[in-house]
């Protein structure tokens, strides 16, 4: 609360930012942050044809297959979320 009040002039911006996927906050866990990084990496590969072809050549697969695999992997790129602590 207090930190929000300190940035009164910019709170709107902060709220706006918080609405986007991938943005973080002070209580973000390592797992969440890294998951977002992985997803960004995967989507970057899918989005840049040169990267996709690079991977396709390296793996000996079709680019379509690579795209598909990357997209599939976005579901839980770092495995299932770790168990919550008690607190």
């Amino acid at each position, binding site marked *: 609360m207090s*930190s929000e009040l*300190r*940035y*009164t*002039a*910019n709170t709107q911006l*902060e709220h706006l*930012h*918080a609405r*986007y996927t*991938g*943005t*973080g*906050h*002070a209580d*973000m866990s*390592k*797992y969440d*942050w*890294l998951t977002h*990084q*992985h997803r*960004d*990496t*995967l989507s*970057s*590969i899918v*989005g840049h044809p040169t990267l996709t072809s*690079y*991977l396709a*050549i*390296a*793996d000996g697969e079709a680019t379509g297959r690579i795209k598909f695999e*990357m997209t599939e992997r976005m579901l839980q790129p*770092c*495995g*299932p979320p*770790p168990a919550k602590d008690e607190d």
Partner: protein
Amino acid sequence: MSAPGSPRLVDSFTAPREILKEFEELAEEEDVDPFAETASKRQIAQRQSDYHNRRFSRVAVDSADAFQGEGAEGEGGYKEAMRLQMLEKEEQRVKRAIEEKEKKAREEDQEKMDLDKTPPAAELEAAEKELAAAASTKRKRRWDVDTTEKTDTGEWGKEALDAAAPKKRRSRWDATPADVADTPKRSRWDMTPAAAGGDAPMIPILMNAPGIMMEDKHNRYLSDDELDAVLPSQGYAIVTPPPGYAPLIAPRKLMATPLPDVGGFQIQESSDAAAMAAAAGLAPELPTEIPGVGNLAFFKAEDAQYFAKILKEEDETELSVEEMKERKIMRLLLKIKNGTPPVRKTALRQITDKARDFGAGPLFDKILPLLMERTLEDQERHLLVKVIDRVLYKLDDLVRPYVHKILVVIEPLLIDEDYYARVEGREIISNLSKAAGLAHMISTMRPDIDHADEYVRNTTARAFSVVASALGIPSLLPFLKAVCKSKKSWQARHTGIRIVQQIAIMMGCAVLPHLRNLVECIAHGLSDEQQKVRTMTALGLAALAEAAAPYGIESFDNVLKPLWMGIRLHRGKGLAAFLKAIGFIIPLMDPEYASYYTKEVTVILIREFQTSDEEMKKIVLKVVKQCAATEGVTPQYIKQDILPDFFKAFWVRRMALDRRNYRQVVETTVELAQKAGASEIIGRIVNELKDEAEPYRKMVMETITKVVASLGASDVDEKLEVRLVDGIIYSFQEQTTEDQVMLDGFGTVVNALGIRVKPYLTQIVSTILWRLNNKSAKVRQQAADLTSRLAVVIKQCGEDQLLSKLGLVLFEQLGEEYPDTLGSIIAAEGAIANVVGMTQMNPPVKDLLPRMTPILRNRHEKVQEASINLIGRIADRGAEFVPAREWMRICFELLDLLKAHKKGIRRAAVNSFGYIAKSLGPQDVLSVLLTNLRVQERQSRVCSTVAIAIVAETCGPFTCIPAILNEYRTAELNVRTGCLKALSFVFEYVGPQSAYYVDSVVTMLEDALTDRDLVHRQTASTIVKHLALGVAGLGCEDSMMHLMNLVWPNCFETSPHVIGAVMDAIEAMRVTLGPGVLLSYVLQGLFHPARKVREVYWRVYNALYLGAQDALVPFYADLSELSEGQNVYDRHPLQVFI
């Protein structure tokens, strides 16, 4: 100084006697509250109409929660509500019957009186008997004391009553319960105290009708004792009331009825004497500090009755849990309603958080009566509505039993004249319906649909339309169909159709998917036996067609025939509604159908052209406009069939007198002109420009202006052109009122004619010249204004001599004393200078400019703006014609203009500095501006910095930056801040050019960014931002990195402006340095142990992430070593090699 003949000199002046007297009188009346008048204006109930205030006479019922099982069936419920509603209807019917009967009796009685002046023997006898009785008892008795012998209510008695005491006749207002609120002393609840006490589910929300507050010391009745004391005991006899007199209401007796008996929302506690006294106005001091609440912004006398329980100190240990809860709610409500903003905010949060603990009952029992308070003001209402909104959200389905009560209070908001109140009302009802569910809403509102009171039906219809928009039209459709076909009462059908109308009005084109269903729902209403239902159906169809435009004609197929048949069958209001519907449906049709149906309706329209009904006139005009706008209607048809009658009926002087008619006629005529052509319309009305009635001339002029503006004057032939110009000159000369219409008309027409006005120019210009010398300032002003409008056309026609003549005359007029006129004259001179150019300008620029210099000191805004524009223009185009000294003089004058209130003036002044600097060289101007940084006024300094930046932009940054840097060494804070600001604007304006200057300013920025003064660092951050954005990609990364290191530590600043500027600078650095560099800064603090650090860093990270999401991918650190168990953090795709 006095005139020679004056008797003596007055050595002191004082206020006029009548004013002094007025104050004396005011002082005498001690109770006078100077704020009373404004307070009553703030009160919603005071400014609203009687219709709006009917809300005070509504009755709310508990709505049983149908979803709660058997238990809740006991009290309230749908059945009960319907029964109550029937009762109420019956009551009204009986009342009306009684009233009717009485009226008839009175009339008969009147006849009798007229025929025979002597009262009937029987009456005389009775009166005598009464007198004797009174004499024998010897007891003083007032006429209105209720005694048993006066219960005779027979027909005869009534007549006697009317004859004997015609003044005491019951007024109509006592009879209708709807208007109870208007009578100051009697409310329906007073009449039947017993019934109200016993009937549990019928809970009146209003306890605030003025009748309730009868303890008011000013208005209470005099007691017998008091009357005895006032009147002499001898020489007077107390006249007994006539035998038949039976007061329908006996106020004195009822006054004794203890108020709390009424039950329901009542809060007042009879035991609390202090609060009662406060409520009655006996204790004038109102508390501003309440125990457990603290200081309040205000406290009104009316509040005391609601918050009586918390006004005094109590021993909290003796209270039960329920009572504690009640007091807690009251305190919170009082804080919200009367508290200062911070108090209000925390209280609102508390009441929201605890809403479910408090429960719906206790909360609404407190909130709703407050909302029905008569002295409620906008602000209070807004806050209370906000409370309901928040609480509703939390309570969810717990509100069910209170739905009707809430509706009764909130529905009136839907017809409030204030837009925001309506929106608030809609919001609440929509949330309510989401919380309570459709079935419950319907069962709650169903009884009100055929309520006897039109007001209730109206608001209910609107509430239903809100429910429809909240829960979707399809879910409400089956119910609507049933209601619209109701056989039981026409009121139900009427309301059902009105709901559809309101849905269309509220939801607009969102009705399209359900259009067919909605139309089918109400279509049969067109042939209803009730006139009102038919009218409402037509209005509903109009609303649907308006909402659906331009789609959906196929949904209206079924109603076309009845509508077009209907216009032949109806007259008056019904016809107006039908025509309105047709007017909205025709634009949806295909061209050929539109043409056919227009022809059908035209006959009726032309007949109704003659109508004397204002409403009908407006609708007819609107329909004509709509028909004319459709594609299928041919110009030929309009010219032949509509125009002759239209002009005969509407182009008459009388139409110009009413503002709304005037506008309608002009709009419709312009629309007709779109089809019929400009010359057709102008030809018909051009002669009226010489009409003797000025408003009518104005109407003609406005129409011609609009027609010419949209269609041009190309089809105006030579003959018409002569008449037109002649008429315009005539009406311009003859105008007596000062408005824009004639001026605009003149300008528009002449500009449209263009070169064709050449033959008339001599005449026009001589008119202007003549009027420029007129005695009246307004006439001179108009002539000058006209000159500015005509300048372009005169130049087009090649009449340069005329222009130079005008220019000279205007130049001579620059001594004008009326500022408005002077402003217009300068503007006209400017317009001429604009079209002829600086070299050809007559008077020559070198004469004109020195003349303008003193005028710049004029404080009038219009003069300032006109002169600064003229001077700026000269500085821009013809600076070389004026000596440098003169320009410097103007520079100093311009500094004063930087203080102007109007932004346009300041901007023009700042731009003028740029032009002047360009022609003179920057040095002198710059030194003037830099010196101006020392002045006190902030606005003047800010404008100077902007001007410096503009000079830098026009003359090149190298001319200014050294001077600014030098000035920055001054020890004065204002000057240094000013320099920083100027630099910030400079770099903003010059953009990429700043790459050349980065290294020169770095040392200064180092100094500024490490200054202790916040503003310094803020402004320096702004400079860094502009610099960074300007030099992105230009190879200044080294200096930028240096600046970044200086900016970065400021990211923990808390002052909003500073942190904003710093964040902006960091964001700009992302562009110059690249996101990777920024990420390395940010990574250090994302998982810092201190939350305050983390918060700031995440903020920067989020901005970075949103700005460069994809670009960050290669820069993320390899965190594979953090992998544990199932979670593998390796980014394998990035580890692939070929």
